[in-house]
């Protein structure tokens, strides 16, 4: 990543720097969560996303057993059941898509049967949606921003995302309020109706039995 051919070979990088450079060069993978995939069964992560949102995700198998990295299988499905990404027997991969429908997007991981050893597989998953998945490099190149300007542009993007989220929360709250009010009105109406039905049914009973006994000449 940082190439400088004038540095003489005798000057070795301190090991911390090497690790840091390696970490930085693998990009966003280093700021991700690690998950345990059990030996049998699948581990699924999901997120509720609305439509027209960019989702970008990288996954890497971290655990090494017997000198070889374990392999996993991945499957990503949309809320309507469409298969968005399906790979078997891989150690790393990346998937990116733009959501078309709003709903629960599911990414499932399971370990392949071929892995030996009794341990669990640890996978590093980096899941980014919306503003976090934006490719700032291309924006910087297109608009020729750098340094402080680029950082401020990123902050502006973050503020816009916050604003959108707030509007979404507001609309959901309004929906919930209308549902609550409907339920409230319904409870009141149905209780009164239930009382009415009780009275009507017992009235019918009394009338029917009176007719029955009069027919039987008991009254």
């Amino acid at each position: 990543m940082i190439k400088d051919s004038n540095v003489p070979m005798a000057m070795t990088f301190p090991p911390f720097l090497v690790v840091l450079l390696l970490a930085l060069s693998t990009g966003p993978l280093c700021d991700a969560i690690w998950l345990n995939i059990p030996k049998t069964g699948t581990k699924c992560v999901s997120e509720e996303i609305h439509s027209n949102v960019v989702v970008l995700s990288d996954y890497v198998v971290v655990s090494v057993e017997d000198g070889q990295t374990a392999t996993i299988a991945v499957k990503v499905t949309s809320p309507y059941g469409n298969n968005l990404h399906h790979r078997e027997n891989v150690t790393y991969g990346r998937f990116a898509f733009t959501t078309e429908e709003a709903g629960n997007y599911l990414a499932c991981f399971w370990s392949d049967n071929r892995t030996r050893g009794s341990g669990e597989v640890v996978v590093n998953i980096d899941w980014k949606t919306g503003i976090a998945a934006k490719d700032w490099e291309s924006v910087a190149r297109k608009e020729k921003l750098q340094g402080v300007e680029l950082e401020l542009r990123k902050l502006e993007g973050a503020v816009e995302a916050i604003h959108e989220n707030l509007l979404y929360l507001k609309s959901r709250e309004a929906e919930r309020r209308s549902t609550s009010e409907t339920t409230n009105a319904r409870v009141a109406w149905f209780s009164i109706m239930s009382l009415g039905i009780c009275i009507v049914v017992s009235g019918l009973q009394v009338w029917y039995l009176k007719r029955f006994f009069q027919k039987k000449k008991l009254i």
Partner: protein
Amino acid sequence: MESKWRKIWGLIGLLLLNFVNNVSSLSLTITKVDCVYEIVRSEGDIVSGNFVVVDHHIFWSSDHPGIDFSITSPGGGILHNLKGTSGDKFSFKAPRSGLYQFCFHNPLSTPETIAFYIHIGHIPNEHNLAKNEHLDPINVKIAELREALEAVTTEQKYLKARDAVHRRTNESTKTRVIGYTVGEYILLTIASVLQVVYIRRLFSKSVGYNRI
């Protein structure tokens, strides 16, 4: 040679600034115990996050014990321990760098879905750079601004998850009101019809003459 090292360190400092965004907002279904791990790259980073139990079904018994949550530092010490919650926020300053463990423990056997969000915020300060490099104060200010915005985003994710839970409760109440009321009407009618049928049978001649 000095200037070259200075340039390299400057570039690294700038790059470090770029990688402070950390977004992992996900839902996980846990059966017994499930752990999520995160790497904190430098000590002093502020780790903040929240989690909400989404699948909290309180059908017949309202004494669901809730989910236990614990955060373990890379040294093995437990930083945070919550028992029997249905969602909470947390925030702490990482005492050291390394792998942090966020564990959810489900005391019951029914699987529960948990929506969680963890954010690790890093503000560059003097300790991270070499002696020859000085820190541009504007970068620090930008990092602080970014962290403030991330705090708002974290709070919003929490509100979003809680809103999803309340929405579920509301919709289930709505369907339950209709279901139980219609069921109540039907049962009432059936009970009264059965009453009438029974009384008719009591007075019917074929059962017994003047049995009453």
